[in-house]
């Protein structure tokens, strides 16, 4: 069969992925000094689970009405708002936290407003600070995932509902709720897994015995205690937890039947009037404000800093952009090969290998890789390659999720027609896959580029001074109390991240709409 070589390629890639994930974890397990958990470790475990569950629930609950409003309303700035929905998830975490502190912090906008009204101060530190940051970072991902679900419902189905005299309630019950039931478990599980490995947020807004995540505890074990065995033990616990969460995500989000094909006609979702119009308006304004205020705050703080930028910003920026582009290319290529194989009925372990990185954290993989190659290669030579590798691995589960449904639909709708016409190999990619999947491919590439661009994890453990990436430079400047310069560099970082994302996402959408 013509698909045989492709499946073989996907199988080899899956095997390679499994080795790259399980190898470092095995190294960590080998170095772990037993699993004797102290009271502080147990508190970290409890806090990690609590904040991840709450973050996932709140993000998903808020995302449903926002996605619904975006799906059925047309208004000026809608496209911009949808692009903005991609923003906080793509925002370098350290920059997002700076923005949130500017709005919600001790001397922030909300507290200043509250003070003038005689209200008590709120604190952004501790559990609710971590939750605010996680919802800020993950709500947009949830909205975009759910919005894609809404838009993938064929227009014919809404027309059918209209012709049967469906009220908005009936539409919700017969068309929208089944879609949500199929989609939400995957959304919840994904956000839970992301928040499970929260590091930068916990580092800045958490900390202390009451609000330390496992990932932060691992970092502290290395940086402050120099206790590699303790760190490896915690990393093992983190990995076990992540594996359970990933398994959950894999089971819950293993979507099977996609909606059937509709011809490429404009959406027929009729926007209801009355209180629903007001409610939709409320949700759109809420989402826009919640996402825009911290970004604006961050920009206002960063603009004056642009004049105080150190010269090291530009080589760091070039390094970050290069890593981001290579990472995006590799992630999307791997993702397309894997979803192609799975959509054609490939083995389930291929899917497993694509989502397995969700179980591991960047920190754990980085430490594991370091332990593996330590006898031969120094950490400085390792910094950028390992960062690239970890970036690809960490973005792959999301890219896989984003691509699998369109790939399955493509196969279900046109797989047989293409096969019967002998449309195979490169011609199939050029004439069928690319024109019909360019939008999700562009979005996936933009997502992985921005994630890589803003990643601050492994690089912090390894980089020599001449290998500093832009996020690490921001952190260094912050650590040196050069706040102005840090804010300016953060603004450059954000601008570059968003430019990369926008170029790739809009490019993909342009190609598919052509």
């Amino acid at each position, binding site marked *: 069969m*013509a698909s045989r070589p492709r499946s073989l390629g996907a199988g080899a890639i899956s095997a390679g992925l499994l080795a790259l994930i399980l190898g470092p974890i095995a190294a960590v397990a080998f170095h772990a000094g037993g699993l004797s958990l102290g009271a502080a470790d147990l508190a970290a475990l409890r806090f990690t689970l609590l904040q991840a569950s709450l973050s996932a629930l709140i993000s998903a609950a808020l995302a449903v009405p926002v996605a619904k409003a975006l799906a059925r309303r047309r208004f000026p700035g809608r496209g911009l708002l949808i692009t903005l929905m991609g923003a906080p998830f793509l925002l370098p975490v350290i920059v997002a936290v700076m923005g949130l502190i500017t709005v919600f912090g001790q001397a922030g906008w909300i507290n200043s407003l509250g003070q003038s009204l005689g209200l008590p101060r709120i604190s952004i530190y501790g559990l609710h600070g971590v939750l605010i940051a996680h919802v800020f970072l993950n709500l947009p991902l949830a909205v975009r995932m759910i919005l894609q679900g809404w838009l993938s419902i064929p227009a014919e189905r809404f027309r059918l509902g209209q012709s049967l005299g469906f009220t908005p309630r009936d539409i919700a019950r017969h068309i929208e709720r089944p879609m949500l039931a199929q989609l939400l478990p995957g959304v919840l599980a994904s956000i839970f897994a992301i928040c499970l490995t929260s590091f930068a947020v916990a580092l800045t807004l958490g900390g202390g015995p009451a609000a330390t995540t496992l990932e932060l505890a691992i970092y502290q074990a290395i940086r402050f205690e120099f206790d590699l065995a303790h760190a490896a033990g915690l990393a093992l616990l983190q990995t076990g937890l992540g594996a359970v969460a990933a398994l959950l995500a894999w089971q819950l989000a293993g979507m099977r039947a996609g909606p059937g094909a509709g011809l490429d006609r404009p959406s027929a979702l009729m926007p209801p009037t009355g209180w629903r119009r007001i409610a939709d308006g409320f949700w759109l304004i809420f989402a826009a404000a919640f996402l825009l205020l911290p970004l604006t705050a961050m920009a206002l703080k960063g603009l004056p800093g642009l004049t105080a930028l150190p010269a090291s910003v530009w080589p760091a920026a070039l390094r970050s952009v290069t890593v981001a582009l290579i990472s995006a290319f590799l992630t999307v290529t791997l993702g397309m090969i894997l979803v192609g194989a799975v959509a054609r009925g490939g083995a389930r372990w291929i899917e497993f290998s694509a989502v397995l990185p969700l179980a591991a954290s960047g920190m754990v993989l980085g430490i594991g890789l370091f332990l593996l190659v330590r006898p031969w290669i120094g950490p400085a030579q390792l910094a950028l390659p390992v960062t690239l590798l970890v970036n690809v691995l960490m973005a792959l589960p999301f890219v896989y999720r984003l691509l699998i449904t369109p790939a399955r639909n493509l196969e279900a709708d046109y797989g047989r027609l293409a096969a019967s*016409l*002998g*449309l195979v190999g490169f011609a199939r990619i050029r004439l069928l896959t690319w024109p019909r999947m360019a939008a999700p491919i562009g979005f996936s590439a933009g997502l992985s580029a921005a994630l890589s661009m803003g990643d601050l994890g492994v690089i912090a453990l390894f980089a020599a001074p001449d290998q500093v990436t832009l996020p690490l430079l921001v952190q260094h400047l912050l650590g040196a109390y050069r706040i102005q310069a840090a804010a300016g560099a953060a603004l450059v970082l954000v601008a570059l991240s968003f430019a990369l994302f926008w170029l790739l996402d809009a490019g993909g959408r342009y190609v598919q709409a052509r």
Partner: protein
Amino acid sequence: MFRLDNLVLAQKDFRLTADWSIRPGAKVAVIGPSGAGKSSLLAAIAGFYQPVSGRVWLDQRDLTALPPGERPLSVLFQDQNLFPHLTLAQNLGLGIRPDLRLSAEDHRRIDAALERVQLQGLGKRKPAEISGGQASRAALARVLLRARPLLLLDEPFAALGPALKSGMLDLLAEVAAESHATVLMVTHDPGDALQFADETVLVADGVAHPPAATAALFSSPPEALAAYLGR
């Protein structure tokens, strides 16, 4: 000569056997209750579905192991016969060269095929911009261009009105005659079989029966067909 040689299809509770042949150029209807395996039989012949055992032959050539695109046949599905992001001309062009590297001569052939099915001048349109009947005619035009010796149709034109469908069946007969193709058409409508097919294969009770003369079959139907027809 098209031949199914002890073909056995099986999946869970489903099992279907077929062991018969059709003479070249014949037009054969495939009829039977839903779920009996009409579409599975067609999918197996087209190469989408591997039989458990048996062979599919066409003119002394064993098709059983060939991938769908390399089989000497064309398929028309119930719908989704055209790619919505490609123009009609491109959709037809896929029938000449799937990589669409088309010569001037190829473009002339595409125009001629469009004209043959009365779609002249619509080559630049996309499928969403034409009617269902026009889409069916475009798919038939591609069948003409491919000129394969075997044509499989899975309940085609089911969404079209009676007059349109009848006209389509006539056009199909002409296209088949022009490309000297043997035709196998799955249908649930006895009227289609009577209008179009000299012979009919009855699929029922796990067996695809050998083709029988359509008129005779319907005038004195065996028990399974009588039950399906509601007589």
